[in-house]
């Protein structure tokens, strides 16, 4: 990565550190107090976050998604729900990254119910995200939130299915849209 790109990427951090430096020279209290906050948060988190990412990276190489993908669309009922949830848990990234995958599931013959269950599980149960949740908010909170989310997004899937079933619902790929 070129120096220029690096500067652009860390522009705010660089500006902030300049501000802190100038504040330190002139004993500008707001600058010093702000840096105090920053130092505290940064110190608490910087040791933890790389560790979490290593855990996520290891998980990614040991539990490949391909093994789960072959079950999708074939299984129905509770088994079908189980496999879309497992597939969703192995993903990472923001929700809009799941939309193209939903299109693929749709093409593969996944039911409307399971597609929306996939979206629900994708947004609330991704393992990389859970790693962060447990690390920062604690195991109790994480277990409680996931335990409550599960029946809620399954219900959303069932409701969406019921509502959209006879309404010529289709998922389009972005290029067609």
């Amino acid at each position, binding site marked *: 990565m070129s120096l220029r790109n690096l500067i652009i990427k860390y522009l705010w951090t660089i500006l902030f550190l300049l501000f802190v430096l100038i504040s330190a020279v002139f004993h500008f209290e707001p600058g010093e107090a702000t840096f105090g906050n920053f130092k505290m948060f940064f110190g608490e988190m910087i040791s933890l976050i*790389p560790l979490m990412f290593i855990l996520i*990276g290891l998980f*990614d190489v040991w539990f490949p998604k391909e093994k789960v993908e072959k079950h999708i669309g074939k299984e129905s009922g509770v088994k079908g729900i189980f496999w879309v949830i497992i597939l969703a848990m192995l993903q990472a990234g923001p929700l809009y990254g799941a939309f193209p995958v939903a299109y693929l599931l749709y093409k593969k013959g996944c039911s409307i119910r399971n597609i929306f269950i996939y979206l629900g599980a994708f947004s609330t149960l991704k393992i990389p995200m859970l790693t962060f949740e447990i690390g920062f908010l604690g195991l109790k909170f994480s277990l409680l939130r996931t335990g409550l989310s599960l029946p809620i997004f399954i219900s959303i899937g069932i409701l969406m299915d019921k509502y959209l079933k006879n309404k010529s619902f289709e998922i389009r790929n972005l290029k067609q849209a």
Partner: protein
Amino acid sequence: MKLLAISAFFALVLSLFLDREKTMVGIKKGLKMFFNILPAFLNILIAVSVFLFLVPNETIVTYLGKGTGTGGILIAALVGSVALIPGFVSYPLAAILLQQGASYSVVAAFVTTLMMVGIITLPLEIKFFGKRAAFIRNTLSFVGAIIIALLIGVVM
């Protein structure tokens, strides 16, 4: 946090023992993700540091603390629905809010809507699923997030 450090350590040792090469690939993948998210993470920390200097602790407790009930949950859910914050950044942010006096149910409303509801990405969602499905999914998810937050408030 200790639990996580210990499990990361054991996972690493086990993985190294089973397959050295795979382990290296995994570590590289993880570190790559870390450096990808680092600028966004630093920006949020800076924003929060400035914000907490400007807004006193008591204000956060007043609006997002345990005593606020549904009001605080609604504020957090609305902000979470509109904001576009990567998950890897939202959890450190949530931890800071918690430290500053926000309640668990407020934090739950914030992280859940952040994950499930996307107002900014709604146009994109409509392109894939159509208006009707996108609106209903977001509405149901919003209601679901409030239910989750309220129940968490009861237990924690």
